[in-house]
């Protein structure tokens, strides 16, 4: 069955440190992959997306992600985090075989220490 796994429920880093949030997916066909961020009392906002082509995609606010078909992964990275990056981050999978059911991971709560 198709799934998205975010193995880290919580991540704490210091401001200025680098960041990697992990995402693994399970899907046999070509995946469409996304990272979203949710700030308190807000809906989800798109950070970046991958459909095809260059496996490294750039997003808003200096976030980037790398798609790896061999590892079934789509990890999110940032070179230097800011306290305002504290939020919940979701990895999501859209499937060409079922366009109307976007699957979300359980989310990773990021806490940036000032």
């Amino acid at each position: 069955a198709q799934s998205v796994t975010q193995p880290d429920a919580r991540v704490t880093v210091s401001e200025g440190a680098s960041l990697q949030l992990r995402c693994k997916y399970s899907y046999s066909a070509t995946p469409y992959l996304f990272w979203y961020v949710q700030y308190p009392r807000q809906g989800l906002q798109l950070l970046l997306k991958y459909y095809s082509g260059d496996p490294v995609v750039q997003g808003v606010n200096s976030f980037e992600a790398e798609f790896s078909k061999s590892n079934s992964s789509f990890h999110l990275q940032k070179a230097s985090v800011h306290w305002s990056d504290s939020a919940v981050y979701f990895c999501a999978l859209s499937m060409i075989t079922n366009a109307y059911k976007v699957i979300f991971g359980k989310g990773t709560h990021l806490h940036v220490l000032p």
Partner: protein
Amino acid sequence: ETAVFQTPNYHVTQVGNEVSFNCKQTLGHDTMYWYKQDSKKLLKIMFSYNNKQLIVNETVPRRFSPQSSDKAHLNLRIKSVEPEDSAVYLCASSHSYTEVFFGKGTRLTVV
């Protein structure tokens, strides 16, 4: 402004009451969704509509019913709410296969 708009932002009600949530998108998308987000931030899809047609109907209690008048509107009605219905309900829209845009959510508290 183009976005997904939800009303109300918050709703507090008693067990057994009926509630309705409204959602409108001005993005010109053909697909709309309702997601339920629990207190641990877990997101679960409830329904999706494509051009007013119900496409996905996950295992949700029958007291939940979506209502779509056109492809820009997708409302959610809950008959006889129960305590476990307390959650944030997120409406979203997209073109098929593409990224999903979310509203800010409706927070339901059942007392």
